[in-house]
């Protein structure tokens, strides 16, 4: 019998019912909720249903929480205030775990899950947010769902799904100096396209992936959805075990030993096959910047903005023209000549301690020339950064140091760009208007964002790091 992939092994452990038509009823080990999940709880209440396994459900507000004040009363928009407050009300009423606003453990759901050991290898996890793909970095199946599915999982602890196809993306060799997981995933999306992963679960493999830290793997898996795939995974290894050990909701004692041997056996078998294979050379990847309104619109910082007239496909050509017009850019401009108005360092892509360290290393001893917001992913990340003195480095460099949340990734809490403003942002979506009406977003790594902050334009961070 042919071997199995990591994805299929975990999937097979979670099939409650398999119908003849290929539909699987899957068991959900752990369910993460955020303030935006209010609708799921509302519908549950309306139909008089309970949460089936409240102790397998965690809630943390993130999308609507302000980053400038710890005071709920200061949230100006009454509906946003209601939504933040509803998190605590819902958690108490339905008896689920809560990391309330103001608690050090509160933060962006995709930062908090791994940090608290809620996310573990081998699990099947869901959350009503597309970036749930992040958690697959630990070697679990994790995918985003819509509000109706959130309600379904709350009520039944299970979900109907069709098994996706599998794709393996292998990144060989070693990443170059100054090149991060963010650049790798942007390079991947550039290669396969924003719909390249649709219908697939993606496993990342190869020596360049193995060498990534746990947090870097989260960045990689986070943006898997930007390639159209709902879940990205990395097989659990020593890096994973070292990360998970000792976290509040992770197994300990005897259970820890049993867990590790279970997790080791999950790796894709040598004779397993994938529906599609993609291979990249890690050494060829450079720091990346997006120029358009889809994450596939990406170039290296040392390249020029592409010329639509050289594009053969007419639809693609039209889309490129539209993006250049919206972004107010000219074909052929050198990427590092594009100047920016604001910088955002944060979001579930890049708001963990290593991200902040990378940004601080560039900021240290330099001065921001444009307004720059640093928003840690959780209260614990914030505390850790402060213990390491990173907050001082940022403040001395003229960056603003804020409270945890989604913030300018989506601007729901009021942290937005003004119409026409251009950002260098460590978030994951450069869609039109994503950071506020008329906003123009360029996606970059934290080090590249800090380099843009201190120079006012996109800058190859390797030059600031000493070696180019």
């Amino acid at each position: 019998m042919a071997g199995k992939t990591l994805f299929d092994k975990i999937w097979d452990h979670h099939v409650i019912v398999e119908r003849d038509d290929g539909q699987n009823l899957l068991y959900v080990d752990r369910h993460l909720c955020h303030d935006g999940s209010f609708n799921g709880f509302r519908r549950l209440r309306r139909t008089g249903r309970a949460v089936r396994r409240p102790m397998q459900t965690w809630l943390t507000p993130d999308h609507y929480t302000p980053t400038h004040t710890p005071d709920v009363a200061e949230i100006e928009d009454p509906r946003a205030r209601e939504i933040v407050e509803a998190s605590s009300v819902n958690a108490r009423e339905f008896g689920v775990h809560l990391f309330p606003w103001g608690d050090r453990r509160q933060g962006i759901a995709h930062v908090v899950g791994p940090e608290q050991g809620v996310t573990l290898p081998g699990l099947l996890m869901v959350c009503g947010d597309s970036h749930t793909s992040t958690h697959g970095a630990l070697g679990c199946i994790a995918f985003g769902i819509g509000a109706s599915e959130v309600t379904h999982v709350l009520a039944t602890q299970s979900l109907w799904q069709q098994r996706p196809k599998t794709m393996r993306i292998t990144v060989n060799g070693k990443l170059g100096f100054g090149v991060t997981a963010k650049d790798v995933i942007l390079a991947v999306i550039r290669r396969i396209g924003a719909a390249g992963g649709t219908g697939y679960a993606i496993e990342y493999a190869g020596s360049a992936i193995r060498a990534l830290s746990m947090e870097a793997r989260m960045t990689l898996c986070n943006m898997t959805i930007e390639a159209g795939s709902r879940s990205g995974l990395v097989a659990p290894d020593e890096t994973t075990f070292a990360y998970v050990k000792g976290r509040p909701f992770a197994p300990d004692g005897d259970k820890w030993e049993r867990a590790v041997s279970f997790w080791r056996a999950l790796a894709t078998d040598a004779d397993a096959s994938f529906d599609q294979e993609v291979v990249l050379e890690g050494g060829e990847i450079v720091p990346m910047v997006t120029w358009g309104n889809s994450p596939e619109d990406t170039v290296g910082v040392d390249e020029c903005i592409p010329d639509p007239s050289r594009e053969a496909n007419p639809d693609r050509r039209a889309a490129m023209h539209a993006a250049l017009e919206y972004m107010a850019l000219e074909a052929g401009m050198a990427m590092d000549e594009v100047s920016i108005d604001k910088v955002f360092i944060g979001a579930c892509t890049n708001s963990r301690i290593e991200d902040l360290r990378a940004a601080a290393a560039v900021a240290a001893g330099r001065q921001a020339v444009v307004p720059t917001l640093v928003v840690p992913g959780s209260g614990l990340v914030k505390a850790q950064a402060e213990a390491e003195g990173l907050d001082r480095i940022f403040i001395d460099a003229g960056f603003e140091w804020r409270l945890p949340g989604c913030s300018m990734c989506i601007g729901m809490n009021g942290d937005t760009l003004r119409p026409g403003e251009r950002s260098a942002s460590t978030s994951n979506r450069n869609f039109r208007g994503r950071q506020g009406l008329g906003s123009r977003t360029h996606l970059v790594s934290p080090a590249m964002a800090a380099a843009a902050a201190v120079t006012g334009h996109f800058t190859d961070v390797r030059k600031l790091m000493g070696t180019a």
Partner: protein
Amino acid sequence: MDAFTSLDAVAVPIDIVNCDTDQIIPGRFLRHLPEDGGYDRYLFHDLRFDTDGSPRPEFILNQPAYRNSRIIVADLNWGCGSSRENAVYVLVANDIRCVIAPSFGDIHFSNCMKHGVLPVRLARETCDDLRGQLHTRPGATLAVDLPSQTVTDTEGNQYGFEIAPFDKHRMLNGLDDIGLTLEYDAEFEAFERRHAEVYDWL
């Protein structure tokens, strides 16, 4: 949810590749719910309206011939991006009950079916051709029939589409998933006991 059987209605072409759910409904409206009223305005809001709130005449949904559209014909990767189900509520608020596209964002695809909005995958060339017909004949209708799994265009050509039998059954009958799942309660309980043994470290 509302059942879907068939629909013969005005269709509107949306020529946007990778039309993400942030375009379908911008993030700042997610705090509102359909029952708050005025929800229909949020559909494509920032493409449809100027910053002062006046409609942009060049945006296709503002053109009188397309105003009563109940079908959208889109391009590649329709509904990619955010999982916001509001992108479906806002279709329903505009009485749009079917989207035809070469490919869909996976999450949006399943969200559609939860609200009786039929997502139909047709070949890219077919979608291009359908959009071309709808541009040439503004206000023309398409016919979508779920039982026979067909779309009929303005010239009478018919195209078959695939849909998972389970999804078809749920759409045709307007079935609520939760009710259906709870019929498998015995299997669920048995599974959970087995799972606790296999995942004895949890």
